[in-house]
């Protein structure tokens, strides 16, 4: 079974520029998550999709971050404009069902973003 795919793996931009990340979840997984992971910390949830609808985006900085999952499969996360503090690894994860306390999340390799 193929895992969660993400691209690019690395991105370096200057502050105030825009950047987009792409995620392809495991086939058949209804739920998709975007996390931000600062070095040395656990991942922080940015947004959760169930199919193509948003379940939770309470921690997404909506003034600069946006995400979509138009067809309920692939997803893109965009930052516009980027700030220095956005430097982090952006992880995408997917899970089989929409909710449930024991549903396992499977993570992609992440995109390491450096904002100069």
């Amino acid at each position, binding site marked *: 079974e193929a895992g*969660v795919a993400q691209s690019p793996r690395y991105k370096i931009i200057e502050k105030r520029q825009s950047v987009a990340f792409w995620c392809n979840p495991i086939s058949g997984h209804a739920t998709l998550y975007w996390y931000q992971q600062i070095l*040395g*910390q*656990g*991942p*922080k*949830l940015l947004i*959760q999709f169930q199919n193509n609808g948003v*379940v*939770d985006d309470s921690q997404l900085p909506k003034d600069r971050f946006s995400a979509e999952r138009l067809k309920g499969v692939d997803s893109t996360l965009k930052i516009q404009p980027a700030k220095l503090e956005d430097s982090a690894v952006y*992880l995408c*994860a997917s899970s089989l069902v929409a*909710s*449930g*306390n*024991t*549903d*396992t*999340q*499977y*993570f*992609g*390799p*992440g995109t390491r973003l450096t904002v100069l």
Partner: protein
Amino acid sequence: GESVGLHLPTLSVQEGDNSIINCAYSNSASDYFIWYKQESGKGPQFIIDIRSNMDKRQGQRVTVLLNKTVKHLSLQIAATQPGDSAVYFCAEKRMDSNYQLIWGAGTKLIIKP
């Protein structure tokens, strides 16, 4: 704020010895716990989970112990190998947080040859 925390940021273990990574949680309503392993440059990888109605669960070379009385969780790795070098996160889920994963800060496991 975070309710899941780790006692030690770094753990150094001799190859072949057993490793024990500890985690404390503060909310007695937590009903599901997961251990993830994150190697350098990779995303977190699921290792093992345990429900709150259990106190022990075993996998291949790993055992998770849950002590609800003191709100403590541990991950035991038997016969630690170089490939076990990683950062280990405990995470919890509970109904009042919509079953979102709540992560601790992580423990870095270093294997000494």
